[in-house]
């Protein structure tokens, strides 16, 4: 199917929306409430385009492409309308980016930048306190643009059924159950809403102030907890040798979804209680020793006992927590070096 975008012909698949078709060809259309997972719902009206033959201007995220459709995505009047819509949003809250966790990764900031908006031109409402009542989430109502992505996520992707819109018109707000603080609500803090939030309304509490988005190195890995093996991206501060934040990988089989342990249980490696040195029990007390001493001591004791009583008195436990490579190393050591098959692991708990 062919369509015309700003005068140029493009090949697109039927069933795509104008937005998807434009983006697949690198044509920029600003969006705020659209997200690949939660779809185009036509709430923010920033993605309006002109389509020949259609009455008025339409939202690119909800209208599907049609054969030989002529679409204009940039025009002075479109820009004026988009600018007014974003200006209304900026004036409806307190989008001050100075120390916002989402700075540099905020879609409202990007769209305002692309439209050249510098400040809200309408009087702003009075500030409201942030909801800090939960362990891992922070909800700042004054940065919420009511795009509904968090609610759509909570009710259709992770289906924890905690979020919903409450009240009406200008008082519409995102509400946890019957407008409870997050901490006492039924929220299991899986963080899907934080990942879907385009602005700084919903952010990770533990990551606040520990690193700007662009300062942190992104490295993909697998979750250390249950057997689902969710794919995640670690936001790492190399200088501080610390994981600052975790997000789910949208392109992997878990589609960006995680649970509370996966998303927020990342800081145990940096705990001061870690075992850091080899130790040997000397007259009943475990003492720190060097690697040399520990390895020599262990090797000689193993050799002494195995030579005396044979290999079968040796047994080794691998683990469901360590990597495949380490498990393989343990079984190879037990079989090739010691010469027994007494190797097992805690598959039973």
């Amino acid at each position: 199917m062919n369509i015309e975008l700003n005068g140029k012909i493009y090949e697109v698949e039927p069933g795509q929306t104008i937005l998807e078709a434009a983006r697949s060809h690198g044509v920029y259309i600003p969006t705020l409430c659209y997200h690949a997972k939660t779809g185009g719902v036509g709430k923010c009206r920033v993605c309006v385009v002109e389509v020949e033959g259609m009455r008025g201007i339409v939202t690119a995220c909800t209208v599907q492409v049609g054969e030989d459709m002529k679409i204009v995505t940039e025009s002075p009047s479109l820009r004026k309308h988009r600018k007014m819509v974003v200006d209304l949003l900026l004036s409806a809250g307190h989008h001050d980016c100075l120390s916002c966790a989402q700075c540099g990764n905020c879609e409202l900031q990007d769209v305002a930048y692309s439209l050249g908006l510098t400040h809200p031109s309408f009087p702003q409402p009075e500030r409201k306190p942030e909801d800090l009542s939960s362990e891992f989430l922070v909800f700042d109502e004054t940065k919420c643009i009511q795009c509904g992505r968090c609610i759509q996520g909570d009710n259709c992707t992770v289906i924890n059924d905690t979020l919903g819109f409450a009240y009406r018109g200008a008082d519409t707000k995102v509400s946890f159950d019957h407008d409870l603080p997050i901490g006492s609500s039924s929220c299991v803090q899986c963080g899907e809403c934080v990942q879907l939030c385009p602005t700084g309304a919903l952010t990770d509490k533990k990551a606040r102030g520990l690193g700007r988005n662009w300062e942190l190195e992104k490295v993909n890995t697998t979750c250390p907890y249950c057997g689902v093996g969710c794919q995640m991206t670690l936001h790492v501060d190399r200088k501080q040798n610390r994981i600052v934040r975790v997000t789910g990988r949208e392109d992997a089989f878990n589609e960006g979804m995680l649970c509370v342990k996966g998303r927020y249980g990342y800081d145990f490696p940096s705990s001061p209680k870690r075992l850091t040195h080899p130790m040997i029990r000397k007259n009943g007390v475990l003492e720190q020793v060097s690697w040399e001493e520990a390895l020599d001591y262990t090797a000689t004791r193993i050799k002494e006992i195995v030579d005396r009583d044979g290999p079968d008195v040796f047994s080794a436990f691998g683990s469901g927590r360590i990597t495949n490579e380490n498990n393989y190393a343990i079984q190879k050591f037990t079989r090739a070096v010691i010469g027994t098959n007494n190797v097992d692991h805690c598959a039973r708990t």
Partner: protein
Amino acid sequence: MTMDTNERTSTELEQLATLNAMLARTSREEGGLIPALQTAQNLFGYVPHFALEHISTSLRIPMATVYGVVTFYHFFSMQPRGKYTIRICLGTACYVLGAQAVLDAFREQLDLEVGGTTPDQLFTLEAGRCFGACGLAPVIMVNDVIHQRVRPEAVAGLIQHYREAEQHEGELV
């Protein structure tokens, strides 16, 4: 947290029983939520929180969704209402013929803001949308009774009339 029954008065218990009976017959698929809320509103005079819980669990609709619907529609109130709900019509015809002055008079006399209820639980003041009696503008409704061509000066008399009706009833019962 299951609703502990001993805290509820006996009338509330039967009302709750009627609500539960209605819920048993309602299914979420055919949009049963709003009729259920309307039943609760008519039974209790308002939608108490424990009714929201009952509706949420028996229709298996998340509380967030139930709360979103009950706070969307103007008709539902989650605070107990006064015995007499005074609704001042703010339709165009009434407005043009002085409804705002009538509303201000009620606000002064009852010392209430729109949506508030008098401490003695007698009056609730609401600003309503057009009741469809524009020929008799400006119009107010007290529960289901329509009063037509109300003048600001007549407001005091009207309130007095209902206060006396209340005392009168008070003596009888």
